[in-house]
């Protein structure tokens, strides 16, 4: 209904990242929000669901950041992969370094939405809207990525583990712009898993999705990253499960212990896509599947 309200928004682009930070800060100081629009794959849909705006309502400012050079591009230097907040999923899945060194990220991007969504959607947008169902964010959780944010006060990095505080809540200040994500690349050939349990094979929001990345040394996992979508108010990082796996040889991990750890790490709910019981079942099953691939007898 209220897509008809789009003309009631002020739309603009900023000349530079610094100028953008200035606009956001200035408006924030006045108590006004600024919408940063990248792909719009969440935001435009949300507008449609909102009640129509009254004529007296303040005009929201929407800044299109999809073309901002500082927010774009994918680079890899000395084992650090940096993905601009406004790089699209299509760019991510097609990038040679991503394909070679972060194949789980590429696999995730391939299964996300439809190709049209992939051509517009961005990691920055996924982080900003902060849905616990976001596949891209689950992948970042598994990589223990850092989020680069910038404001008029300067630039800082938020480790993923310190990012999310509650349902759609984060430690990013309201005037901080998401610039990029940085991933410390695991050694080449590290085992990984992207397993999406969606409502169908494509164009599906996850019922449960598991991102996993491991570094194995003989019978042990020495580094483990896990991220799970749609099983808690925030993207689940499965810390108990990680601790369990890192604490003992793969051969000593039992299915029961693993299941118990997974259940302690998640807090799924019934919703329109699935049920709490099914999510618990599927979460356990996909984690077991990953550990089985790694060599655990589960």
């Amino acid at each position, binding site marked *: 209904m209220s897509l008809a309200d789009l003309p009631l928004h002020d739309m603009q682009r900023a000349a530079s990242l610094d100028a953008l930070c200035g606009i956001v800060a200035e408006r924030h100081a006045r108590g006004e929000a600024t919408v940063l629009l990248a792909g719009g794959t969440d935001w435009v849909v949300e507008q449609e669901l909102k009640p129509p705006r009254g004529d007296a309502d303040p005009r929201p400012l929407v800044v299109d950041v999809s073309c901002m050079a500082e927010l774009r591009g994918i680079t890899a230097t000395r084992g650090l992969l940096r993905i601009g907040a406004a790089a699209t999923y299509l760019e991510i899945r097609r990038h040679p370094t991503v394909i070679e060194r972060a194949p789980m990220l590429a696999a995730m991007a391939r299964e996300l939405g439809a190709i049209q969504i992939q051509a517009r959607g961005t990691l920055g947008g996924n982080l900003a809207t902060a849905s616990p169902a976001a596949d891209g964010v689950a992948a970042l959780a598994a990589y223990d990525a850092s989020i680069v944010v910038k404001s008029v006060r300067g630039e800082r990095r938020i480790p993923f583990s310190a990012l999310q505080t509650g349902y759609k809540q984060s430690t990013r200040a309201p005037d901080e712009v998401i610039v990029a994500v940085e991933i410390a690349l695991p050694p080449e050939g590290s085992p990984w898993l992207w397993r999406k349990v969606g409502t169908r094979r494509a*164009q599906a929001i996850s019922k449960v999705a598991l991102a996993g990345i491991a570094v194995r040394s003989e019978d042990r996992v020495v580094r483990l990253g896990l991220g799970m979508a749609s099983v808690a108010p925030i993207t689940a990082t499965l810390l108990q499960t990680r601790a369990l796996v890192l604490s003992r040889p793969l051969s000593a991990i039992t299915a029961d212990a693993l299941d118990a750890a997974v259940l302690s790490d998640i807090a799924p709910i019934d919703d329109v896509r699935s049920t709490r019981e099914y999510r618990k079942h599927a979460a356990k099953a996909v984690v077991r599947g990953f550990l089985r691939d790694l060599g655990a007898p589960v």
Partner: protein
Amino acid sequence: MTTAAQNASSARPPFIGTNVPRTDGASKVTGRAAYVDDLPREPGELFGATVRSPVPRARLRGITLDPAFDWSDVTVVRASDLAVNEVQCITAEQPILAADQIRHAYEPVVLLACADKRKLAQAVRAVKLDLEPLTPILDPEQSLAKVDVIWGEDNVHKRFSITKGRADLPDPAASAAAIEAAIASSEVVVRGRYTTHHQEQLYIEPQGVIARWDEKGVHVTGSLQCPYYVHKALVHGFDLAADRVHVTQAVTGGGFGGKEEYPSVIALHAALLAQKSGKPVRMIYDRKEDIEATTKRHPAICEIVSGCDRDGTLRALSIRILMDGGAYMTLTPVVLSRGALHAAGVYRWDDVRIDAVAVATNTPPNGAFRGFGAPQTIWAIERHLDRVAQELGRDPMDLKAQNMLREGDTTATGQTLRGSVGVAECLEKALTASGYHDKRKAPPAVRGRVARGIGASVFMHGAGFTGSGEKHLKGRVAVDLLPGGRLRIRTASTDIGQGTETVFRQIAADATGLHLADIDFAVPSTSYVPDSGPTVASRTVMVVGGIVERAAREVAARVRAEQETSGGDFAAAADRLLTKEREVTALVQYEHPGWVTWDDSTYKGDAYPVYGYACDVAEVEVDLDTLEVTVTGFWSATDVGKAIHPVMCKGQIEGGSLQAIGWALWEDVVWKNGLIQNPRMTNYIIPTALDAPPMHVDLVEAPYAYGPGGGAKGVGELPMDGGAPAIAAAVEHATGLFARDLPLLPERLLELQTNRKG
């Protein structure tokens, strides 16, 4: 010589049976086709919107227009403004606007129109409904138990009974006792309860109409299947003479039954706003409003008790069908009837009693949807026979083949099948092509954490209207002779994407010897096409196509007679004839085969003049960890009588099968307190191309002596019937989980698995 003349004078190979290009194809793929919302704005045109009830049941105490809002340029229509507040369907029990009672969520209460779309959206929110909520009845079993009365005297929209053999007694109690006794005396008795759920048509183009009034009366153009249904509703709603109502079909993006009866509602709404405002009004639903407010497939509960011999011969059958009609009756009696008539499946039974009842609930009215009640009952009987086979230790398809109807056998209504029974060939072809028997004999293949299984179903679907329907309807088609020896078909049968235009041209061309390009298809408008009956019930090709054939032949014969007396080619003779007679038109009416007899009071006789038959086979992979089901292959052998256009015919079968697969595995309207939780394409899950299996369709042609083009039967609905039971059988083969309830969501399979372990 003109093309028409050349083709008329020289023999050419037939068009029927060939895959000519669709005549509407180019305009659709290039975007030139104008759907209703593409039609140019008319001067002064307003947009229309609907204020709907947010609760499923309430007393409507009042309506307040927010005094702070500027209503000066907004047209408002309430129930109190209406002279007639009835939507004419089978009866006129549904109000156009709720007056004092709210009977379902999203029920229309107030209509608004405004030139400014944004202001219109605000106006919708500025209407305050004073509602006193009442406890809704949302469960059909509670409705049947009369926990509260919400419709009529007892909530019952309709009841039917079908009896045969020893149960064929006039007294219902005696009949029920007789079937019980017949079953009890059988060697093997099996009981089961099988349920199905709502399904949304999800046509690609939402509902929409444009209405305007002038000195000729009311004009409505819209996305619709049945122009004369809308015509009838407008005549009744405005108390107008028939010739003052003009309903025209715009290019229509799919219907699947969803644009059978509902367009009457939106047409009345737009016409009311247009009448009050004196301006044209455009009403186009968005997806959310469309999913919430318009009709869906009736959910059904079927309880079956059957008796058979130890050798598998089926003997006695008792079925109780309960359908959820939703808040108003609308077309429910007809859906229930078709459901009941297909409930015994494609099998011989000696003794039968089928009791079908549909009741009201406080949910939006359920309505027409491809299959029209049959997919619900065929799900039940197919699953039930799978259970019987389990009990007997037999392969289900062997058991089914043993009991399938043959020519000369009688159905549950006592109809003797008089030919065109291609079911055995369908079964043979589909099972062979899919390698069913070898795959069933081998133990379920488990590879890693994935189990593979195969399952099948066999079924029939009556073509055309039930019983005496076609006889009463007397569908008519006109074919006009045009200058140059061309023909124009005038029919109310609409092309909603299924290819009517093209197929009718093929039939008319072959009936006359003319070329396809010489046959025009008039835009269906009640102002100049006769009432051919609605575009429903798998009747378009078989029934209306037959009338087209006869009408075209009649016109061509008159031209040829002129040719014989005065010479010249076809075109010249046509022009001479037109000069002489000014108008050369054949207006032909449907003639039911004389042998068809049907008794509506006893539900006995020839329920349909003929049936289409099919056997579906599904092969699935089930992820044993997550219980996700992937259909890896789908085979259907379908007896269509005669395929006029094999590619489009197969297209109907592939599309219908995919719709059945969607219903079986994913599609699920999620309800909470009478409200729909997933009215969007992101969360009402239909299959994507990646979810669609490779399809292998075999056309079987057991011609129907009265069908056009050499024996065509209906095909539109049949492919919706068998997909779900075939998939359930395949899932059972793969996992051992026997599903009785649709849809087979992983969540549901997990429950089955947990209960089995428990």
